[in-house]
């Protein structure tokens, strides 16, 4: 005997307690104050649901060459995290690239990832890590116009659950 038939349906309408590390602890909400285990298959069980942080849709964006341009704006409030930057070179020649994490102005004092190095002809530059946006934004500058296109992966902080 169980408290519910379809587990997935039950989760959708069950109060959830948010724990660190993006784990939802699910239980039967009792007396408005406490979670108690489900009766599931004749046994008392709590359920943990592992959730993912919210990611944001992004499309490829050209990296301008005349000056450094913003590739990803700082969030209006709080912070977001960049986990991947993929820059593809659509030309048959190497193209130089600078990336910056800066609040107001991209300079040689706030470069990261690649500092004027070349993205190979028809090649890919990839940066992986956890770069915090806010109040800083992500900037980029290419050595050649219309040659480099960046796809940036942006998500909320790990402890944000939706």
């Amino acid at each position, binding site marked *: 005997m169980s408290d519910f038939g379809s587990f997935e349906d039950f989760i959708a309408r069950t109060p959830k307690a948010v724990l660190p590390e993006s784990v939802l602890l699910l239980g039967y909400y009792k007396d408005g104050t406490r979670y108690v*285990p489900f009766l599931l298959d004749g046994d008392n069980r709590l359920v*943990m649901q592992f959730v993912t942080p919210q990611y944001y849709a992004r*499309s490829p964006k050209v990296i301008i060459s005349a000056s450094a341009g913003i590739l990803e704006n700082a969030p209006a409030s709080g912070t977001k995290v960049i986990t991947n930057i993929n820059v593809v070179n659509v030309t048959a020649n190497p193209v130089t690239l600078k990336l910056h994490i800066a609040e107001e102005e991209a300079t040689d004092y706030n470069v990261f990832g690649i500092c004027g190095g070349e993205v190979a002809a028809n090649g890919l530059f990839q940066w992986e890590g956890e770069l915090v946006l806010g109040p800083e934004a992500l900037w980029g500058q290419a050595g050649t116009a219309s040659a480099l296109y960046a796809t940036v992966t942006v998500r909320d902080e790990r402890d944000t659950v939706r």
Partner: protein
Amino acid sequence: MSRLIARLLGRRFDGDKSVDAAVKVDGTYYTAGKMQVAELRKRYYSAPYIITTSWAYKYGAQAASPMLLRRLEVLNPTAGALTFQLALMTATTGTPTTSKAFLAWDTSVGAADLWSWEGEIPLIGRWIHAKASGSGLVLLVVAEEIDA
């Protein structure tokens, strides 16, 4: 659904009962102790697609059911080098231009060789389109379900 045995820390009471007393954390009571929990693993997806000499969408996800792209491979089992292009579009139709270039553009893959990429890129109302210079290339997509 997969299941695992987990130990949650808390205040034990009443002998050998498998479920212990609730413990207050940040103003909320949690039942704690040794108990069986069910783990809902995210759904994974993987599939190979043939890349042709014409642009066509291969894989993507609606905004309501997003996926996280984890790995791409372009495999060339033929006897000669071939080039390929990838684009990220907001629709399953259309002819991509360089402004939609995504991870690879006129990238060469040698005979009996492969190109691969690993990382994480959300596909939220986004579709991967591909085109090759000749027949024979295969695109392998590996993606993971994320919350909508």
